């Protein structure tokens, strides 16, 4: 009897243990107000929404992109409360500086990685999700990832290279840095993979999408950009030509007419644009904070609130170019209302400015007008909402990239380079740099003169478009072996900085001193001596990796200058 009872009890408890499996189902709870990962990635809409998130994060990164591209370049500077920004423009950064936080950029990468991982799986599940549709999404994801890495490699040189989507905490998150060449190879691979599908769109159904979602033009532009960065000049020219020489019915084209130049910024989505990040207050109710970054018109720079105030050096340069444009176009005295040329339009000139037919006197207050105005007539026609788009690539940019590549290729291609430079200058209302048919004049040119002309054109054309710092950095990075003999000023007693570029062996920088001089001239918040000593170390040209990641990622080593 007793034995029987014990076995009954044992049986019962055994039954209880067996019911564990059914319990497991009962214990599966899902939240009401969130979409669970496991239930996501079912339809093409799911993919599209994450693609949108990639753009969303790109758009969120714009303030960072502007700070990175402008503060060290010296056209703009931070005066007031932005401690981190001041430290950045003074090349005095610590890893705790919030401006070296790259988390937003990696969020873009994370979105792109997810799309690349899941879109093919979704295609297998969703019958209405056609292959071409899926591949088009992949192209957008490739663009987002490649652009994000291009930004990282330009600013940090070496960062962890993450190409797989993180799904759960099982994956290794403590990844070490990848080298510059690995990252660049990955960027090129991504763009090539996207183009290889043939699904990269030239246009979308809606106009805003054609300019604000990745197209094949955007892929070409990004490729030209990264090739120039990596000194692959032929490749750069080839991709630039795919845009410049394109014959598609709808394609980005250079707006040659001087008077139409401002259309690029207002209303935006212009013919010249290749890719711009989209804001529209009317549909989304979202502003960008460009007006708070670039100081308001009428305030003196001393009390400006934004982090992007014009420096004295750039103001002088704007005045000079204005003088030159006014003389060239033979504008009658006193008629400053007739606003032509990019200088008037880019930077609004206050009513205190004057022109007497031969001499231009600048006014006291000038401010960047690109992101603020609706027209070029006067300072009162401002946008109703702060929702100007932010242009990443436009045709003039590609043309000047091509010109720079041509300059670097050697004397044989300088003529073509000058032709491009002249196109840009003429649109701005400036005379030719050198007449392309004047062989004597062409023969007196040297590489540095040409390079600095390209640099100047880029500076004035893309003021406030976050290109300046990379232009200077490209100049600093050119190898001495490409410079004609005798022009390497580093040879005159200044100690060499050795630098291993991918595949080139150890080389001496040709224009490092020039670049440092440029930086020191523009910078007005720290001493030139200080800058020169800091910038001798080429690792100081890049940002420190963020402190939070150094502490949380045991395998991540800080960039050498900041160790």
């Amino acid at each position, binding site marked *: *009897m*007793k034995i029987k*009872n*014990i076995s009954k*009890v044992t049986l*019962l*408890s055994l039954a*209880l243990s067996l019911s*564990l499996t059914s*319990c*497991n189902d*009962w*214990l*599966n*709870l899902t*939240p*009401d*107000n*969130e*979409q*669970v*990962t*496991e239930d996501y990635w079912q339809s093409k809409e799911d993919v599209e*929404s994450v*693609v*949108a*998130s990639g*753009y*969303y994060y790109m*758009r969120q990164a714009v303030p960072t992109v502007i700070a990175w591209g402008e503060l060290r370049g010296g056209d703009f500077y931070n005066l007031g409360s932005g401690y981190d920004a001041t430290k950045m423009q003074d090349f005095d950064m610590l890893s705790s500086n919030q401006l070296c936080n*790259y*988390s937003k950029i*990696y*969020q873009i*990468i*994370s*979105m792109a990685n*997810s799309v690349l991982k899941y879109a093919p799986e979704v295609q297998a599940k969703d019958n209405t999700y056609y292959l071409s549709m899926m591949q088009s999404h992949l192209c957008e994801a490739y663009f987002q990832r490649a652009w994000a890495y291009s930004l990282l490699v330009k600013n940090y040189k070496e*960062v*962890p290279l993450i190409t797989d989507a*993180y*799904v*759960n*905490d*099982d994956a290794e*998150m403590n*990844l070490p840095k990848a080298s510059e060449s690995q990252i660049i190879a990955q960027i090129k691979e991504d763009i090539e993979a996207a183009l290889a599908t043939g699904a990269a769109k030239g246009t979308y159904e*809606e106009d805003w*999408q054609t300019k*604000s979602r990745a197209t094949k033009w955007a892929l070409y532009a990004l490729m030209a950009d990264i090739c120039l960065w990596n000194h692959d000049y032929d490749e750069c020219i080839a991709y630039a030509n795919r845009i410049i020489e394109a014959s598609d019915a709808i394609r980005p084209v250079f707006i040659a007419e001087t008077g139409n130049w401002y259309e690029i910024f207002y209303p935006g989505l212009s013919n010249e644009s290749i890719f711009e990040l*989209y804001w*529209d207050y009317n*549909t989304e109710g979202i502003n960008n904070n460009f007006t708070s970054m670039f100081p308001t018109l009428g305030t003196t720079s001393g009390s400006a609130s934004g982090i992007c105030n014009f420096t004295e050096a750039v103001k002088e340069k704007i005045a000079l170019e204005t003088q030159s444009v006014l003389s060239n176009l033979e504008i009658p005295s006193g008629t400053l209302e007739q606003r032509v040329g990019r200088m008037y339009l880019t930077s609004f000139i206050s009513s205190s400015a004057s022109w007497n037919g031969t001499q231009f006197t600048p006014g006291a207050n000038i401010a960047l007008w690109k992101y603020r105005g609706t027209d070029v007539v006067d300072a009162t026609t401002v946008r109703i909402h702060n929702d100007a788009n932010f242009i990443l690539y436009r045709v003039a940019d590609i043309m000047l990239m091509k010109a720079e590549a041509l300059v670097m290729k050697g004397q044989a291609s300088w003529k073509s380079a000058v032709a491009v430079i002249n196109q840009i200058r003429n649109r701005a209302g400036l005379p030719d740099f050198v007449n392309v048919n004047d062989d004597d004049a062409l023969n007196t040119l040297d590489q540095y003169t040409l390079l600095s002309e390209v640099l100047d054109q880029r500076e004035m054309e893309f003021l406030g478009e976050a290109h300046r710092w990379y232009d200077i950095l490209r100049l600093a990075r050119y190898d001495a072996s490409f410079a004609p003999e005798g022009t390497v000023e580093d040879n005159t007693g200044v100690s060499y900085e050795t630098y291993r570029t991918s595949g080139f062996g150890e080389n001496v920088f040709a224009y490092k001193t020039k670049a440092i001089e440029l930086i020191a001239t523009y910078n007005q918040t720290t001493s030139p001596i200080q800058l020169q000593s800091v910038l001798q170390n080429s690792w100081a040209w890049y940002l420190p990796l*963020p402190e*939070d*990641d150094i*502490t*949380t*990622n045991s395998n*991540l080593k800080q960039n050498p200058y900041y160790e």
Partner: protein
Amino acid sequence: MLFCFGATVALAQNKTMTGTVIEEGINEPIYGANVVVINQQNRTLGGTITDLDGNFVLNVPEGKNLRIQISFIGLKTQTFNYTGQSKLNVTLSSDSKLLSDVEVVTKAVTRSELGITDIQQTSSTQKVQMAEITEVAPVASIEEALQGQMAGVDIVLGGDPGAKSSIRIRGVSTLSSSAEPLVVVDGIPTTVSFGDDFSFSDANEDDFGALLNISPADIESIEVLKDAAATSIYGTAGSNGVLLINTKQGKTGKTRFNFQSKFSAKEEPATIPLLNGKQYISMVEDAIWNAANAKGLAFATSELNLLFNTKELLRDPSYRYYREYNVDTDWLDEVRQNAWQWDNSFSMTGGGEKATYRLSFGFLDDVGTTVGTEAKRITAGAKITYKFSDRFRIYTDLSYTDYDKDANAVENVRSRAQAMMPNQSPYLMNEDGTRSSSYFTPENNFQGNFAGVSSNNGQGNFNPVAMANESYKNTRERTEKITIDWEYKFPLKQQWQHLTYEGYVNMNMKTSTSKTFLPQVATGVLWTNTNANRSTEASSDAFSLQFYNKLLYVATIAEKHNIVFTAIANLTNTHSSSASNATYANVSLNLSDPIVGSIVGGASSGDSENRKVRFTESLNYAYDNRYVLSAVVTEEGNSAMGKNQRFGVFPAFGASWNLDREHFMENQEWLTQGKFRGSLGWSGNAPSSGYSYLGAYSSLGTYGSMSAISPSRMQLDKLKWESSREWDLGLDLRILDRYGLTIDYYDKYTKDCLMEKVAIPSTSGYTQLKYMNSGEMSNKGYEIRLDVDIFKTKMWFAKISVNAARNINKVEKIPTNWTAENYSFGNGSYAVRIVEGDPIGSFYGYRYLGVYQNAEDTYARDASGNVMRDFNGDVVTMKNGNTQVYAGDAKYEDINHDGVINEQDIVYLGNSNPTLTGGGSFNLKYGNTKTSFGQFSFTVNCNFRIGQKVINSARMNLEAMYGTANQSTAVLQRWRKEGDDTDIPRALYGMGYNYLGSDRFVEDASYLRIKTMSLSWAMPKKWMDRAGLQSCSIFFTGYDLFTFTGYSGQNPEVSLPSKPTKLVSDGNTTPVSKRFACGVNLTF
């Protein structure tokens, strides 16, 4: 149903029996006596009741061994064997002996949840009979009753009515989960809690008040389970310790009524003296002057402007509000009141052989010492047990609690009152210098304006008197509990075998609504402001369901082998949801409901669900009650855990040796009890929210016309149970039936600590993981309890009991990616660090050295004491942060001798864990109820905490002399000129670092407090009989009358923060008042 059945059988057999029932003594027939036929198992087969003349006619069904039972409430039940007789006359006698019968019953073996008797226990538990506490000194809450009573149970009470107390059993063994113990009421864990997902925008956990909402008068006993082996039967929920609360049950016998009433008056301890109006103005002017001078007058336009143009500070009779700014107001006094508490409870118990019941009703009204605070509680309960037979019984328990708490709309009325300018008046003044009835609440003055409410505190300047009087936050919480419990004993043949099945369903519903109104008269904001007459209404709803099944098998083999086997299966489901909405610009106080017409200020809602499954099997073997071995294994599944690690298995083992039962001890008289025990057990901890392991996607917004959705949380596949291992060695001795001693030593080691919101590399695209298992910590300690019956004679009885506990907490391994150190250099902040080898709750800050007396004193010195010089040979002056110091500024130790006080100079300053906690009680009785003068009883209870440190942030705020807030009179001793012998720096308005987080404000808050002193008198039996009473006693009690402490704050009993990683700081919440109570306890 049963009766119908009985009747049908009777009709079929048609056997009847008649008779009369008479009451003994008075020889009168009894009307309504029960006459029933019962079988061998006491199951009722049929029955009837007697008529007016005491006659009955009973149908008797066919059957063997039938018995006839006659019963009437208040009289002794009689039973006869049925042998076919057709007539039966019965005389029932008074059941005066019934009381002793009940006593015999209570002395019967009590078995724990696992069916184990006390003697078979192998783990550490301690029991307190509530009657011992509450009969002499009734308390408002259970926490209050327990304080200082149990070794290793550390309780800190809050001062406001309904404020939550914190309970820690054997220290803190978790880093981010709650450290509160599990509360089990009548065997049923209280499960209603608010998970991590719970977003209740305008409420915090404290609003849900004294967690239990049980009237102490309903409690029979409280037991504390401390070690892992003891708590294992409640699964992982008990990993922080378990409080077992047993409430009073119905008793067989004549109906008894009990009534208790207590009235107490409260008096707050003295407050810290503050500056009066004139002293305040001169202090502020001094501070502003010093700041202006430190900046250089040329750069100090704003300071000079403040000094010369602040009308509130200038005694300018032409100023419109001259009268309002030239008074002496004791703001704190304006928001305080003398308060009282009234506690009443009433109960009724009784029952017969078949059914027993207990009905109870209670009402508590507790008025707080801060104006506008009050808590009311109504409790009602019914417990009914019905025995169908000896084998089968059903028990139901219904209870309802209505808890109504009034508080101010913001919590910091007191601290605001302390900060107010004493020269300002709370009310507009009349021409004649008397107060008018309108509040004086300027929109903006020297002390700034109202800046909104954040974490339940009003930010910036507001009128605390108007806030206390006019604002409100009313929380109404209703709890309904229903339990249906059934038990069936299987018919097994041998007498020494029992197999019992027990099950219950428990439903617990908690509805809470809270209404808050923030009146414009208290904040002075403009009507367009979102805080103008803002009203918030929030509600939450929680429901929990438990389904419990237990099989219990008890066997005795060959008389000496005792086996107890238990198997438990338990399911729990909790679900809570909440919603809140706010409006502002409501027209008036009376229209403060969020209604149409006002402007919507926000709305939110939340939802959370959790499910648990638990299986527990236990086996206990005792040989001759001398040697005991036990094993328990718990498997537990929790919906909060990831699929891979959803079930945790937690075993526990124990052994004990009862020395007094040994044969060689048989003739020893001196040892009444001698038990050595040891146990080892594992337990776990799961995240509190329902689905934190799940990865989630949430909406990000839009990009153009595309909707953007992105992952917001990473899926956790590696999430594990936080697990702890604890062993315990203990000894229970009772010598000469007079000296009782219990000693325990324990060692608890927790690993895979659940870390919440762990930072991960941002390259992952995420910033944090919701949970990660990382870090290890240990708690070791000992507990001792001593009870001595000093003397026991016929007339005198005296007893003393003392307990003490020491817990040593240590972080054994820092969690990876630990980022809690979020220190930014600045006044008043301390670094939160977790250091391997140090306990949790450690303070890190600067070492305060007093005040710089002169310029030479401010020179920076290197390690060997030489003055430091820069490149030019100039003397380097010390800097606090980036500010150069001057004479009169605070001097901190420059640990690294670099001339700058910064993060590198932070040192360990002590920690908030007490070295020793405990309490004691003394009880003296004279006489007994049989004498002509009754019984007098005198009781003293006390509790103590020794060696814990706290940040006296109240003092810090009162001595900072940095802002516009009023300061304590201590600052009259501030440094003014060289040679001032003081350690209080100079006043410096808005500048410098004169109150960095340093040891200046870290104080030892050790204390010994006489909790209660009580005198009670029980009426002699003679008087009671005359008045028809069963018992009657009257008592006088004083609470918190004496506190021995060196702490400079108002109350050394500083509440513990909700998270173990937060620092213990005394923000000057309402202190526990001195209270004087008197009351009466009647049973009839």
